[in-house]
């Protein structure tokens, strides 16, 4: 079984200002699972996007089954039997499963689409690989797990035998991850070869045959699962010794300063996704909310920060009923909010760093008088904050869009974490950041906790929740299914709660 099906030979790819891949080589043998490991921004996605024909390498060669290949677009890659499941699913929500699967590779009868034949073929594939999908369901109505199956069937429908899975477990619960590994192994048994991209060390050791580690666009090591430990892989990935635990003292919680009672709220499509949620956060503690994405976390955060109307229940902060206050009034009470989607909500990319640093404070007396902006005060503030938060940029007047993701997040943090802060609501604070930035943000959150700030942390990364929180609530279908002390929490128990909303396995059977 040692035929090499794919060979990446000294490939280099640069984008304006960045060398994304430099002299990267990689081989994939038939029937193996080859893990590509590296932290955010290491160049993993760039590499596989070249293999899938979405990017064209500047230098170097890609060979499929010994033949040099040059892909003009991903259609060429698909023709060579390469399939890819993207980190962000490439599905069309308003199409049915069958339409999504056949798109680009349509089954026809004469000039017209032949959906009946397509359905039959999809059923056959689903049966063969144990990937149950309903061809007539609308993709937008499916859960993330089901959507991932659709993506897999999509690749298999094109007779792919080289599969690229880009961070496939990011959206799954620990239990679903185990099931997914089962599917991946059965695929290799049927002769498929798999490139598996992740930044999670635990998964690498569980599933990989071989491992290649990327750092800053270069291959820094290659090994097998047997020859590696989490610590050795982490050191390779980051390039220095990594401390897994966040250093923190025990919490010294005070009185509850956030009380949410029976909160209800709806998502943009009008479906109720927060369904009567109760939570209390005390001063000086980090309350972590874990859960599979899409269980109402986004609406919860937006509703308590005034960005989304509550359709029921109430939110109290520092003794005030703030239900339906606007974001500015809540902010003035001493509530900071680091939003989940930084580029959508947190910043104006075209603005200067200085303008972004006063985005929600521009009307304070310090920065304006009688409605006229005080530019020098704004610039002075920006210079001070950039210094304090170590924002690396050419100056306060540089456009925010010129900054790296980590520095952009530091700008948001700098803006939110200054002033008279009493409560911090923070969602997915480290998504897409490199390890250095992650550590910085984590230290800031713990430092605030130690100053007596109440922190409500929402994250899809269970590791992050467990590392930072003092208490953990698991959100399931719009409510907290359970609240546990972080000291007593285990991955397995939390995973079960995330998947089923209940802590006993028998309930899971019933579902």
């Amino acid at each position, binding site marked *: 079984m040692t035929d090499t099906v794919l060979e990446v030979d000294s490939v280099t790819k640069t984008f304006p200002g960045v060398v994304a891949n430099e002299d990267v080589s990689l081989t994939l043998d038939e029937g193996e699972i080859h893990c590509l490991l590296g932290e955010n921004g290491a160049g993993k996605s760039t590499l596989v996007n070249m293999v899938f024909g979405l990017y064209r390498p500047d230098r170097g060669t890609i060979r499929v089954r010994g033949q040099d290949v040059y892909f003009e677009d991903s259609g060429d890659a698909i023709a060579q039997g390469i399939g890819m499941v993207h980190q962000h699913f490439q599905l069309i929500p308003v199409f049915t499963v069958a339409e999504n699967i056949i798109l680009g590779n349509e089954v026809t009868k004469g000039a017209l689409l032949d959906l009946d034949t397509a359905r039959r073929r999809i059923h056959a594939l689903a049966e063969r690989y144990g990937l149950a999908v309903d061809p007539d369901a609308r993709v937008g109505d499916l859960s993330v797990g089901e959507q991932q199956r659709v993506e897999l069937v999509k690749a298999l429908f094109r007779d792919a035998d080289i599969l690229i899975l880009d961070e496939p477990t990011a959206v799954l619960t620990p239990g679903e991850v185990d099931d997914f590994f089962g599917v991946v192994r059965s695929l290799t048994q049927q002769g498929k070869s798999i490139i598996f991209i992740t930044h999670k060390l635990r998964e690498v050791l569980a599933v990989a045959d071989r491992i290649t580690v990327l750092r800053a666009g270069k291959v820094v090591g290659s090994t097998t699962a047997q020859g590696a430990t989490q610590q050795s892989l982490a050191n390779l990935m980051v390039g220095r010794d990594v401390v897994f635990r966040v250093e923190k003292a025990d919490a010294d919680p005070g009185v509850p300063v956030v009380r949410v009672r029976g909160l209800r709220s709806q998502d943009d499509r009008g479906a109720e996704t927060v369904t009567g949620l109760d939570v209390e956060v005390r001063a000086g503690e980090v309350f972590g909310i874990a859960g599979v994405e899409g269980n109402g976390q986004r609406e919860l955060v937006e509703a308590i920060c005034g960005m989304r109307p509550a359709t029921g229940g109430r939110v109290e902060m520092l003794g005030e009923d703030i239900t339906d206050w606007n974001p*500015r009034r809540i902010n003035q009470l001493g509530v900071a909010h680091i939003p989940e989607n930084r580029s959508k*909500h947190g910043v104006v990319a075209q*603005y200067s760093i200085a303008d972004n640093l006063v*985005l929600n404070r521009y009307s304070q007396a310090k920065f304006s008088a009688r409605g*006229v*902006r005080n530019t020098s005060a704004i610039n002075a503030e920006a210079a001070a904050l950039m210094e304090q938060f170590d924002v690396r940029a050419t100056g306060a007047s540089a456009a925010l869009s*010129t900054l790296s993701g980590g520095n952009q997040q530091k700008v948001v943090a700098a803006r939110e974490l200054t002033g008279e802060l009493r409560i911090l609501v923070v969602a997915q604070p480290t998504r897409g950041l490199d390890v250095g930035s992650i550590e910085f943000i984590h230290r800031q959150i713990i430092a605030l906790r130690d100053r007596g700030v109440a922190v409500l942390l929402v994250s899809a990364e269970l590791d992050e929740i467990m590392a930072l929180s003092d208490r953990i609530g698991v959100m399931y279908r719009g409510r907290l299914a359970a609240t546990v002390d972080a000291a007593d929490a285990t991955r397995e128990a939390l995973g079960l709660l995330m998947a089923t909303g209940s802590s006993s396995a028998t309930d899971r059977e019933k579902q």
Partner: protein
Amino acid sequence: MSRPGKAEAGITRASGHLHRLLTEAWRLQPLYVSLYAILLSFLIGGVLISMIGVNPLTAYWALLRGMVGNGERLAGSLARSVPFIGSALALALPFRAGLFNIGAEGQLLAGGLTAAYVGALSWMSDVPGIVAIPLILIAGTMGGAAWGGIPGVLRTKTGAHEVISTIMLNSVVLFAARWMVGSRDPVVLRDTDSTVPRTDPIADTAVLPELVDSQPVLHTGLFALLGLCVVVAFMLNRTNFGFEIATVGLNPHAAHYAGMNVNRVIVLAMAAAGAFAGLAAASEVSGTNGHLQPGTFFLMGFDGIAIALLARTKPVAIIAAALLWGSMLSGAPLMQQEADMSIDVVRIIQALVLLFVAADAIVRYLFQVREQGQQGQSPFQAASVEGAV
């Protein structure tokens, strides 16, 4: 991409020289694209003119003399340009907030109707000009603001896209005006002594003082609209409201997150746009005509769009663009007279200008103008259009 032919290379090289010359001579960096667009349009216009058998130089010489040939023509050109400043500002301000106001024509008409109504009230002739003139201007401004605010409210309450609703409101107010100004039974605003449909003449006290007795008359409304440009520029660049407008335009989600009242900004921006158009209309009614005819503002809204885009929505640049636009229209009749061709030639040159200004990438490509840092990106290459149309 095919290799550029010899001729094309020649043009590119020549324009490269020209470009360097301009760089060194005037330092008008942000306006390059607009200048080149104008140049290119006159070139293509010249080709069209020669195609219908007229020497383009003769035509353009006549046009130029029509525009600025003598003091009176120059004053006429200025006068013709004044209302365009208002209608261009009516596009520019909402544009900064991410809104595309096609409704300046309707807002002009709404403002003109209120101004004409207030100006012709019987007691107006009893109050002194110092009261009457502000009154008629404020009336026009309010009328325009009210009509302009409607699409803002519709956008925020129902999601109706302002492009369609403003166009529909243009038609609605036009029919309303035709009826109000034209109907004899019942008489609403019609001057019953006049054979053509028009409103009663406004009171003498409400007439803006005349500067030059040109055709059309140059009056002090000029100062009102020049002042307006300065005020709007200050507001956009230096005030919190300007910051809110820009934030809503660039990223409404972030504006919402930052506690700005996005809906209020949208309604205010649209109402302000209507107010600018209304003021321009009032100045026309009060200073130029003394009454209102329903067709007075025909196409003036569309001209405003072109002018605002030509000026890249910068209020002070709007003054220059409006002067160019208005004087071209004002000079066209002389060209018609001397070169025996219709004034529509001017229209097509203007259409070409607009095309090249919006598609500045074409101009940059032809003239090899490099993007000037981050500020060089065209304001019209907005990342994405909000809401489906």
